[in-house]
């Protein structure tokens, strides 16, 4: 792979990562937006204004307010309920029975029932009996409060919404999954709700200018479900992380026994690990070589410290380098031996394969840990720091690669002129300034 190709690969990788991040940002934005749903209330639907008695109107308003309050309390208290089911339940019950009392006082004739649908239908029925209005309209009117989250709903969402509202009743079990619908008792309710949705949408727009339309933001009904799933995920993940550190002796026994069945003596290290270690060792060797070259240069031209300090420094540095090189050589020899014993036994003609990631490392685990951070700023800094480290790592590798391959410009042609001015300028900027700045080459001729 030539140098240009390596840089190209790096650019491609950056682009891929960036598109992944943009996609992620889009997803997060959508999630945040969909946590709230806008609701347009209309206290009165088209044409039914005259049919509603003023006291019923008042009742409806009060009922709406109370239901809203109940929903808010319910959605906060049920997540509390999750956490401390025993303690808080009674409190919530108390709260709700309190609300129920209010509602009962308002509506008087409504007995406490299992589903709010029933209650509303009874009210509806009550309204029907007195006024003989057509079926759908009172639905629109009466169901005003319950239809809040339904405005952008598919029938299943509206069902769940109803189930959500109905769970303001203390006896209701909280429905966690959005798709779990507690079947409303009426059969025609799904059709009603699905009819109602488009009609409502239109009505909403039509009555936007009329009577009283307020826009409010309430929480999406899916939000508690999502929160519950997320907490569950956190719990499960921590469990997974604790499990991973537990050894499984049966597995090691199986591996050992299987290894014993191999016909010939093979080293315990597998070729994948050998190759990986070779890569690491090669990189270290490169680092050491470059460090050595830099040291040679620095020795000649450094201007920090006294002569003796410099000498001593280079002495120690070279000593250290030699020691590290010796270590690398021992490791490399070991790996070479292992590789050769594998190579001998393989009948040849096998494809080169590569592990798709570093999953072979026996010591480390490859499961991402849970990172606890305390503020948004900290998270931001951590992630950008991580990227900067990656970038620097890549820059160091590229610098080394460029130094090695572009060194041909001046070292291999001792007799020739050396690089031209333009080339030298380009080389300087690339190798010495990271491409950011250019030097100036000035023609200095003594004019006679």
């Amino acid at each position, binding site marked *: 792979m030539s140098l240009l190709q390596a840089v190209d690969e790096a650019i491609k990788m950056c682009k891929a990562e960036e598109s992944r*991040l943009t996609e992620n940002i889009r997803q997060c934005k959508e999630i945040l937006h969909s946590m709230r749903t806008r609701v347009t209330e209309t206290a009165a639907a088209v044409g039914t204004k005259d049919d509603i008695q003023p006291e019923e109107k008042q009742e409806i308003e009060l009922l709406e307010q109370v239901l809203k309050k109940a929903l808010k309390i319910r959605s906060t208290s049920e997540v509390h309920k999750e956490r401390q089911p025993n303690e808080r339940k009674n409190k919530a019950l108390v709260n709700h029975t309190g609300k129920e009392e209010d509602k009962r006082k308002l509506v008087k004739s409504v007995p406490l029932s299992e589903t709010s649908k029933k209650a509303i239908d009874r009210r509806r029925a009550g309204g029907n009996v007195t006024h003989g209005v057509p079926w759908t309209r009172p639905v629109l009117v009466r169901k005003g409060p319950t239809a809040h989250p339904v405005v952008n709903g598919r029938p299943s969402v509206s069902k769940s919404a109803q189930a959500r509202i109905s769970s303001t009743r203390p006896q209701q079990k909280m429905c966690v999954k959005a798709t779990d619908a507690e079947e409303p008792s009426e059969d025609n309710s799904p059709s009603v709700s699905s009819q109602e949705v488009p009609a409502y949408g239109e009505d909403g727009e039509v009555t936007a200018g009329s009577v009283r339309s307020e826009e409010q933001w309430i929480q999406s009904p899916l939000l508690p479900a999502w929160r519950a799933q997320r907490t569950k995920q956190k719990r499960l993940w921590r469990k997974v992380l604790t499990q991973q550190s537990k050894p499984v002796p049966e597995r090691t026994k*199986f591996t050992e026994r299987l290894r014993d069945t191999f016909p010939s003596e093979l080293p315990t290290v*597998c070729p994948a690990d050998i190759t990986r270690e070779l890569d690491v*060792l090669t990189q270290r060797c490169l680092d050491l070589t470059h460090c050595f070259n830099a040291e040679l240069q620095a020795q000649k031209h450094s201007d920090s410290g006294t002569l003796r300090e410099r000498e001593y420094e280079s002495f120690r540095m070279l000593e250290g380098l030699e020691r*590290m090189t010796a270590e690398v050589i021992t490791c490399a020899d070991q790996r070479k031996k292992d590789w050769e014993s594998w190579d001998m036994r393989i009948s040849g003609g096998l494809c080169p394969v590569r592990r798709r990631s570093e999953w072979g490392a026996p010591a480390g685990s490859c499961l991402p*840990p849970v990172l606890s951070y305390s503020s948004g700023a900290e998270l931001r800094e951590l992630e950008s720091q991580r990227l900067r480290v990656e970038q620097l790592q*890549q820059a160091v590798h590229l610098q080394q690669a460029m130094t090695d391959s572009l060194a041909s410009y001046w070292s291999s042609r001792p007799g020739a002129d050396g690089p031209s001015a333009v080339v030298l300028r380009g080389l300087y900027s690339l190798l010495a300034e*990271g491409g950011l700045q250019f030097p100036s080459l000035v023609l200095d001729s003594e004019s006679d």
Partner: protein
Amino acid sequence: MPRENSVKVKEVITSLCKLLSVLSVESIPTAEAFRRAKFNRKDATVDMRSLLSSLLQKAFALDCACWDFGDQDYDMQLLFVRSALCYCGYGAPWVVGPWPPSHTEEVGTRDLLLAFGWVLSSGNLLDFMLSEKVHQLDTLSSAPLIPQGLIPGQPEVAAHGPGEDASVKKDPVLQALQWQYGKLRLQWKCLLSAQEERSKFTHRVISSISPSAVCQPHLTGSHYSNMTSTALDKELERIQALNGILEAYLDWNLHEALFWCWMDSVIDSSLADASSVDPADWPPREQAVTVRCPHGDETRRAVKRLDEMLLRLQTELRARRIEQSTLTLTSEGGRQGASRLSESQRMEVEKKVSGYLEGLRFTNTSAVTSRGFLPCLQNPQPTKPPHRLHTGEPGLEVTAGKLQASTALDELRAREAVLRGQLERLRQNMRVEMRRQASTMEQMVLIPPIKR
């Protein structure tokens, strides 16, 4: 085998199959096929073969273009399977051995089953697949950037010594390189800003997980109101799927031990059968193996290259040392020159040198965040005793699966400092070299750019 045992085994294998299927491994056979494979029945061959092949495809990637994963060429598939198995250390005769089979029909079902067990038990394959899924499904997780390790092929680039790559001498190549490098820098800038934005959003989503969060009304909601909660729906689905996977994994963990015991019994039965057939009786097949890969020499070349580089480095270092020691001997004061340094000076120099060398070693290990992480907002704990942050090594904290942002930040900052130092040193080296070059050019004066 007692009845309950076999039922249990079936349960265990079913749980394994379920886990593999949620981890997107294809062609999972039934638990029955496993049992038939234990007894080396021929009818389970196709199942086991496809299972093994698809598992290996998830674990390994081919470096050569010999075989495309979609191909139906079973012989090439066998070559891939053999290469992958050999690569992860499986030394059975049909993989490595003197007379490897060139046709898939020649490999017994039980052998395939044992190979499958080997792959499953080597390294943390399941963990790796699980972490892939986590990063894929969890919107808030922070995935590792580069597939861990060096930029692939990097050592090769550097190893092309001067003169091998003749095209570099031409100017257009240098210009192209400058251009590309500038492009790369721009990409990194875009990437950094995208990352900042993402962190911001991730934090907002995470903070709305906790129920005490108040949902503030959004300003730009008008065109989103008609959007059904599909985004939240989809997210909910994804998280539910992820939870399903985690549960399957934990379930498998419970039953794992029994599975390995059963695999032990498979080895037993294979040994029992093998003892009746003497491997030396196998007729030597024709040496013309039909499928071979011409690219298999990579590692051999890499080994040779490394050897050369190390040898060169070692000889140069030695030569330098000898040169230096003769210099100091012959110069005035000789050895005493070094001893004229005061103790404190010496300490300082030593500290500097060891710091630098440690840095070299440091950058070769992987960072604490190299596997990615799942961020989690910590509730502020004012009563947290300060010493808790410092107990134990950072490595221990990570192996327990928990990582503190402050520790990670510290390590990353240290890394950054080391890398910057390294880069600066390399560049300084180049500057000096260039100046020297320029000085050999007649009538040219090199004015380096102003340090900003």
